[in-house]
């Protein structure tokens, strides 16, 4: 589903050149639930951003769903992300000015869907994460766990093949973290969604199919 070949990412300033990722090659199968671990600053999030086409590698090749992505322009990248990828962030990144339902509808705004259809799909997604009764709430009126569930609903509303989760349980206590993990596992199991998750939590990582460890930008496991 995702193929990375010799991915390198170098950050350059006037004086320093930092190698954030060093020749990473990775194949992630369709329906796989993969976790990425490693100490802070080892390049986990950078790798996830590159997989999500939010950042470009300095070198190497990415193929997602058998499609090479290096020559896509801004509009094509946006469309590709919209159809194929869903994102979950550690700090949720919900739009506080919008109600829960509007937040969940967001990816559908960039597709050719009617308002009625958007509402139906967003309500369905919220039902899946157990928040159907919170549609009119604003994010600031919800707990951390509830916000992350809204973020998951937003990630799955467009039925993407791949979900990229950057420390989805990082800001939550263990009970809430487990709840979120359950949702992700069910999503992977029942819908066959490919999930790549960056985590610091060994217990969470153990629940996934495969674990990749990074250290100083290199893959060590």
């Amino acid at each position: 589903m995702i193929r990375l070949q010799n991915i390198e990412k170098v950050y350059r300033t006037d004086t320093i050149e930092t190698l954030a990722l060093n020749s990473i090659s990775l194949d992630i199968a369709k329906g796989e639930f993969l976790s990425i671990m490693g100490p802070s600053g080892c390049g986990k999030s950078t790798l996830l951003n590159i997989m999500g086409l939010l950042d470009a590698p300095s070198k190497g090749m990415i193929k997602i769903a058998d499609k090479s992505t290096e020559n896509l322009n801004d509009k094509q990248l946006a469309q590709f992300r919209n159809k194929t990828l869903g994102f979950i962030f550690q700090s949720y990144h919900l739009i506080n000015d919008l109600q829960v339902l509007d937040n969940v509808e967001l990816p559908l705004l960039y597709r050719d869907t009617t308002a009625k259809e958007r509402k139906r799909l967003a309500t369905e997604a919220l039902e899946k994460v157990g928040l159907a009764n919170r549609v009119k709430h604003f994010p600031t009126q919800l707990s951390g766990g509830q916000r992350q569930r809204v973020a998951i609903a937003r990630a799955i509303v467009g039925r993407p093949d791949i979900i990229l989760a950057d420390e989805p349980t990082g800001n939550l206590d263990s009970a809430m973290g487990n709840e979120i993990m359950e949702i992700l596992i069910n999503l992977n199991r029942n819908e066959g969604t490919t999930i790549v998750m960056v985590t610091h939590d060994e217990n969470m990582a153990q629940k996934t199919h495969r674990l990749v460890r990074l250290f100083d930008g290199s893959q060590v496991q």
Partner: protein
Amino acid sequence: MLKNYFKIAIAVLRRRKFFTFISLFGISFTLTILMVLTAFIDKVIGDNYPDKKRDRLLYVNRIEQKGKDNMTSGTLSYYFLSHYTGMMKTPVKVAISSGFNGTNTYVNNKKIAVSYKYTNAEFWDVMDYDFTEGKPFNKQEVDNADHVAIISEDMKRQYFGDVGPVVGKYIEADNVNYRVLGVVKNVPVTSYMFFSDIYLPYTVSKADYKSKSYGGGYMGVLLAASKDDVPKMQAEYENLMKRVPVESKDYQHLYSHANSFFRSYVDTGNEASSGVFIVVTAISIFVFIFMLLPTLNLVNINITRIMERSSEIGVRKAFGASSKTLVYQFIVENLILTLLGGIIGTLLSVIALWAINNADLIANLQLSINFTVLFIALLACLIFGFLSGVYPAWRMSKLNVVTALKAQ
């Protein structure tokens, strides 16, 4: 999609009340000034009372004579206008009137400032004053130098009070009693060629209207038989002026033109440059600078607002918004803001115009919002919204997604 943009625009406006206030104040205040200004210009240029046949008229209000070391420029003498336009074949009638002069009169020991002007009899045929009572003076009365007068409604109220018809009563101006022949609706002072409180036959003027000097206090309006005859009439006047000798050997050139209303209004009398060009350029520069200031202010505020919303931009990009879509969203948001400012500005303008009209700052001037003014205001709003949104939106759309997401 638009509904979503609208929701977020309103939410952002409500969240940052101070910025919203500054933005809306900038837009609405500028618009108010602009609308009052355009209402004023519109009134001065667009209002065609009492010269309702404007498309058949040409205005002669200036003569200039130039010599090597001498130059004289100003309004014309009665003699010059009547003598030379009398030679013309195209005009069917020629209205000749003086500029308005001021004097004082007393009613019940109360001083009233009065303006008066002299006209010929044809003036009343060429102009379409609305008579609320009575009728204009005729050629016979003018030739006899009868002490008769036409007064404005305002003058009637001030001099006689709220009474019934006043035709036949006497009004005193400049220590002379005149019999009122008619009452006409008020003309604003901005129509300076036609405004007055009292209109008198030119033959009662104490000044020497028979003087053969070219310069004097009079202006003329030539009436053509039809709209199509106007160019011919203008050409005839131009040709005539070429043949008129200069007044003395101090001068070599004589210039006088029969112009359309707008041109006659803004003509500087300077032969070397067009008054129209100067006026239009000056107004355009003024409006441009006036609009540019709040636009720059909005650009600045918008850039600040972008930085606060970089997380949202990151999220939208991650979930499929292209840079172009984001530019569109931000411009729409800005247009909503400026349209809100436009609505407030329109309301403020109504209040401002009402206040100006009631303060009676300019005699008989009743400014009002009309469609021209409203159209200009809405157009200005759109330009505001567009100009102040494009650059910030473009900058925003160029934000790197990862950097934008980290900003929260």
